[in-house]
């Protein structure tokens, strides 16, 4: 089975967020870019499938600027992916999630696939647009947010749960298919040092921006981020002073009704 897994470099979740000088975006100076969150889950799920279904191959694909995008692909290779495709985004070329989906579609069309795994959203911009938009462009079905993926022996049909409000829908779907993962493993695999070294020697295929532009047309992205700011800092809780639990409850309820106005 041919598996594609789409990943994106995002700032380490521990990053102290700061706007850039113009206040238009995250200041990326000194940011460490990592594979994390649902993308990490997508890689883990792809590798579990590869181990379970003989003859499977996993290709990791990422769209973004150098050098962080290649680095993230190297980490996917070190975890056990067989091949990688870097979809080039020249520095200073504006993009948005819908354009990222279009660019990734160009890369997916260059390689055979049965199943495409993506995180249901990236941990940075949390747009959740890429998987469904990519599936529409490829003309195949997509399902998300997905947990608990199971498969038949041949890898032709997958069953999984779509997490929806109040419960989950059980779905069984044939390939070709895009699955937007919500699954979270508390302990996804980590790369062994020898595999990190080996991954450095694997050639990464490249889809150039010229090829992307030819595939998606030259129209500007449909959205632009015009400001990036931090919410007003939380200054710490107003602490309730009290002598008895009843007094604490009365004071708290009064504040919730009269000051916070969250209780009728």
């Amino acid at each position, binding site marked *: 089975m041919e598996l594609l897994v789409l990943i994106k470099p995002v700032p380490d*979740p521990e990053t102290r*967020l700061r706007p850039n000088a113009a206040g238009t975006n995250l200041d990326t100076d000194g940011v460490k870019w990592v594979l994390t969150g649902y993308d990490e889950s997508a890689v883990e799920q792809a590798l579990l499938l590869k181990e379970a279904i003989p003859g499977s191959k996993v290709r990791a694909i990422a769209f973004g600027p150098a050098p962080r995008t290649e680095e993230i692909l190297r980490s996917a290779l070190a975890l056990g992916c067989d091949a990688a495709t870097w979809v080039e985004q020249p520095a200073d070329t504006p993009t948005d999630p*819908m354009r990222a989906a279009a660019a990734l579609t160009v890369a997916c069309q260059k390689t055979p696939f049965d199943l495409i795994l993506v995180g249901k959203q990236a*941990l*940075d*911009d*949390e747009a*959740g*647009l*890429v998987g*469904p*938009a990519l*599936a529409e*462009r490829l003309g195949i*079905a*997509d*399902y998300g*947010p997905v947990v608990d993926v199971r498969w038949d022996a041949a890898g032709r049909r997958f069953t999984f749960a779509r*997490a*929806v*409000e109040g*419960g*989950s*829908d*059980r*779905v*069984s779907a*044939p390939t*070709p*298919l895009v699955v*937007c993962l919500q699954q*979270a493993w508390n302990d996804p695999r980590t790369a062994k040092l020898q595999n990190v070294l080996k991954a450095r020697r694997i050639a990464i295929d490249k889809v150039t921006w010229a090829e992307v532009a030819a595939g998606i047309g030259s129209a*500007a*992205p*449909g*959205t*632009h*981020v*015009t*400001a*990036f*700011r*931090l*919410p007003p800092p*939380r200054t*710490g809780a107003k*602490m*309730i002073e009290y002598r*008895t*639990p*009843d007094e*604490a*409850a009365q004071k*708290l*309820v009064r504040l*919730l009704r009269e000051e*916070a106005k*969250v*209780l*009728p």
Partner: protein
Amino acid sequence: MSSSVLVVVEIRNGAPVRASLEALGVGRRIAGPPGSGTVTAVLLGSGSESSSTTVAERGVDKVLSVADPRFDAFHAVVWAAAIAAIAREIDAGTILVAGTSNGRELVGRLAARWEAAAVNGVADLSLAADGTLMAVRPVFSGRALQEVRVDQTRAVLGLRPNAFTAPEPSGSKASVEAHPTPDLGQLPALGVVSGFEPAQTGSGPDLSEALVVVSGGRGLRGPENFRLLEDLAGALGGAIGASRAVTDSGWKPASFQVGQTGRTVSPQLYIAVGISGAIQHVVGMISSRTIVAINSDPNAPIFKVADYGVVGDLFQIVPALTAEIRRVRGS
């Protein structure tokens, strides 16, 4: 930009979901007062006729009901095909979608189908003087805010639940039209939805939609003590959540877990009981409007993110709080 707005209304358990009603209010606001721009609501699936009446009294100009059982199970590809066709028919400029699980998945697919710009997770929306849409959306788990400008004449916007106010029913009723199923074009091979499994989250509202969430942590000491939180949540009409310490110990199923590897919630009121406030928990609840923490340790990090704190024994504070809420609510 066409000031015709199409609002997708999702039906659950035979009624429109509240987040969709919130979207109707946003639709009215960006279309302008009745007479200037039009707001059309569209409902898909067998339940659409009976839900149409509720929708018709919420300030819309027209309700389209496509009562075709093919839409009963949610397949993003089928919904996107139908809604894009209707949007073309009515020459819509903006499509609004409530950010439920289905809605979040629909936005990207629909925008690709309808050749539109897309923004998901919108928490605030305004119109610049020239009619340009400006969206504000929390990013990085609510640790930052992004302002996004829409530069295309067509846009699909996914709205965060609980971020906007649902309009109250008004006296006037818009016309409800039964709409035939649009031409869906050639559809790819679809999955089969074989059934719905309700999450074991008790009888209250769903965690990710509740206006009040009461979450318990390791400080509860055992599953039997969650009864205290159920009483409190019951008095507030809220849902129960939990820290990972609780779900890992099996005191509550994983579907209760709030945080980085669990659910993200943004209720009006979040009450953290016996939860220390680890960053992995906090990212799942930080965008709540008001946060209350009850913890016996005055140095617990949860007090840094809370708005109101009570240092004390939860086994004394929580019952007192439940009693006080029942008292003021007169029940």
